[in-house]
């Protein structure tokens, strides 16, 4: 899978997990607190309903007290005078006080006077038998033991519940003896519940507990409600919640359940809040993810892609000088930089390898040619020798030509030897000598032109062990090069000194010097600036010195001269240097004859 896809998947998964966790947390914490708030709110509303109802009772009670503690009533209950009746037991009294019943009861419990009024139809009606029966069954309603006694509450009639207030009948000075009880009563029917609902601005429903068709939620509420838990809260559905309260009769027995219904706006608000929260979380995650992708894309992926394309195209091409582009200053740039470093290394190594392979091939070929040239050279030399003998001294011109042939054969032989020396493994035959002796032998084989003066400042110490033949050839080679560099004359200075277990030989001339470009190649085989020469001189010198475990270096300045420095160990480390420079072709080795 590509990095881009991976990143997208990771971001999307992380977002989903994050939102899910937050959703669950907010659901539990927020909704729980919202539910608690809703419960509390519902209870408060139910309490409000109950307090409104209690106000109704207080009002009924106080009206009843007004009438009961009045000298006229006090008199009326005893004499039932018409004046009182006509003045007070009239429709307007019922309508003003909003009661259905007004009952005067004497101290023995008999209704001495009373009137019933239909508030709905605004007409007088007969006192129902149920009311009379209620009074005969529950003497607590009318039996007042002292002047402060007061009874109010609900009583259940077969047709409807009844709200009633009962007060002892006293004088206007609230003095007895108590002449009975005055009862104000009102049907607590649906109209009354509706009126209450309007007061509290809540839909209210009331049921009697003895109702055979009690709805299930009322049943549940009634079983949960008790004196200790006067209010019960229960959500009806997603939109509404209900609070229930029990109402007792005058004797303290539960008879009614009132339900106040409310819209679940708190809870809904909570849910909406959570939805908004989750939605905004999703949006935030999307924006966040998009930003991360954008950043990743811009800062990493595009550049990484470019780098990959770059590297793979470089891999396909054969251009060793190709490099990847480096931008910025971060890890990717460092990576690009290291890739470039690697490419540079590969380029250098490849160029070096190609070069050495070329040299090896040339060397191999040259060695083969050199070997095969030996026999024809021998033939030419022999033939020239024969002719020279035959012709004798008779013809000097012919003699000269033959000598030229012999000279060129010798020179060709030298080239062959150089080639073979260069390619052959070098086996040193060490002898003890001194720097002075070594240089003396070398100088004796070189013809120094008259216009060149030699300053020989070579010491005779320390004693060194070298292969005399090879070392002599090396010195001769260097001295010859110096002389050739000074065709118009000059000075060749030879110096030596002991240095940390080595002897340093310095050959300096005052010749033409070597250009910087040539200086880099002088130890490369087959490189030469001379018209006649194969370019094996200095490479062989280098081989010889390195075979002794030493070093050779050349410094030069155009028109000023060249300085060659040889550092040779007093006791050579025979393993020094490269032992085989060119592998000899097997066919040229003498060990087999089977071929």
């Amino acid at each position, binding site marked *: 899978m590509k990095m881009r896809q991976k990143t997208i998947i990771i971001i999307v998964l992380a977002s989903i997990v994050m939102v899910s966790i937050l959703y669950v947390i907010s659901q539990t914490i927020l909704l729980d607190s919202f539910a608690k708030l809703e419960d509390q709110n519902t209870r408060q509303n139910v309490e409000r309903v109950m307090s409104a109802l209690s106000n109704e009772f207080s009002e009924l009670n106080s009206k009843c007290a007004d009438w009961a503690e009045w000298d006229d009533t006090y008199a009326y209950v005893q004499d039932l005078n018409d004046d009182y009746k006509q003045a007070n037991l009239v429709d307007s009294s019922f309508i003003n006080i909003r009661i259905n019943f007004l009952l005067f009861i004497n101290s023995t419990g008999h209704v001495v006077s009373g009137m019933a009024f239909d508030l709905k139809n605004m007409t007088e009606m007969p006192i129902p038998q149920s009311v009379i029966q209620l009074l005969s069954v529950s003497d607590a309603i009318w039996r007042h033991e002292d002047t402060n006694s007061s009874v109010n509450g609900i009583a259940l009639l077969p047709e409807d519940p009844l709200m009633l207030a009962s007060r002892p009948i006293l004088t206007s000075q609230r003095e007895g003896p108590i002449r009975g009880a005055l009862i104000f009563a009102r049907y607590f029917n649906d109209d009354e519940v509706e009126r209450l609902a309007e007061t509290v601005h809540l839909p209210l429903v009331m049921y009697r507990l003895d109702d055979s068709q009690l709805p299930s939620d009322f049943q549940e509420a009634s079983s949960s409600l008790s004196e200790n838990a006067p209010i019960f809260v229960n959500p009806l559905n997603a939109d509404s919640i209900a609070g229930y309260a029990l109402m007792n009769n005058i004797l303290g027995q539960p008879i009614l359940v009132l339900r106040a219904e409310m819209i679940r706006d708190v809870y809904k608000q909570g849910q909406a809040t959570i939805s908004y929260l989750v939605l905004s979380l999703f949006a935030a995650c999307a924006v966040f993810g998009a930003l991360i992708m954008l950043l990743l894309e811009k800062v990493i992926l595009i550049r990484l892609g470019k780098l990959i394309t770059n590297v793979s195209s470089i891999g396909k091409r054969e251009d060793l000088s190709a490099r990847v582009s480096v931008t910025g200053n971060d890890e990717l740039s460092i990576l690009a930089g290291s890739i470039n470093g690697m490419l540079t290394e590969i380029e250098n190594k490849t160029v070096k390898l190609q070069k050495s392979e070329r040299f090896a091939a040339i060397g191999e070929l040259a060695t083969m040619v050199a*070997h095969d040239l*030996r*026999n*024809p*050279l*021998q*033939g030419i*030399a*022999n*033939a020239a*020798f*024969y002719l020279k*003998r*035959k012709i004798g001294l008779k013809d000097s011109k012919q003699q000269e030509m033959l000598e030229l042939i012999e000279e060129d*054969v010798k020179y060709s*032989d030298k080239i062959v030897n150089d080639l073979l020396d260069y390619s052959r493994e070098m*086996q040193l*035959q060490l002898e003890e000598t001194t720097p002075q002796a070594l240089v003396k032998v070398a100088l004796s084989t070189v013809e120094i032109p008259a216009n060149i003066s030699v300053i020989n400042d070579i010491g005779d110490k320390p004693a060194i062990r070298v292969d005399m033949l090879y070392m002599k050839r090396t010195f001769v080679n260097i001295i010859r090069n110096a002389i050739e560099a000074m065709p118009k004359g000059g000075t060749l200075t030879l110096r030596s000194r002991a240095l940390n277990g080595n002897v340093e030989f310095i050959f300096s001339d005052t010749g033409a010097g070597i250009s910087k470009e040539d200086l880099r190649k002088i130890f490369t085989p087959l490189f030469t600036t001379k018209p006649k020469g194969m370019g094996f001189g200095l490479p062989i010198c280098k081989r010889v010195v390195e075979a002794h475990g030493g070093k050779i270096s050349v410094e030069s300045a155009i028109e000023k001269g060249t300085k060659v420095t040889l550092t040779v160990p007093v006791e050579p480390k025979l393993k020094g240097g490269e032992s085989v420079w060119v592998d000899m072709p097997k066919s040229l080795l*003498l060990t087999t*004859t089977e071929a």
Partner: protein
Amino acid sequence: MGGHAKILIVDDDRSIRKTLGAILEEEGYVVDTAENAKEAIEKTNNGFYNLVLVDIRLPDMEGTKLIASMKDTTPKMVKIIVTGYPSLHNAVEAVNNGADAYVFKPVDVEKLLKTIKEHLEKQQESKKYSEQKVAEFIQTRARELTQGSS
């Protein structure tokens, strides 16, 4: 000059056989040639040569091995190894195998002629010496016999 000494040149290179042969003939030697070791062995078995010049590399055998095999059959023949591959190892092997001399290619003809001449003279001397010894022995023995019989 060479007193008609017989020389065998063993070399696989035709021009060397020819040119060297011409030079040696010019010096008064009787020259024979062989292209390879097989031919050289046949020739030395069938005829007498005072000296043999063997190239160290032959198509069928190494020159040093060839002279080793000639050592038993023709011990008195002077054996010279010619090599284009100068090395201590080659030289030691050549001498151990019974070579009398060892010259490098390309051969300095003057030097070669000198070497040949020296070795042939040495051979001649030892031959003379042994002939003299034989003569002396015969004389002594004859004297002893005449004395013994008398």
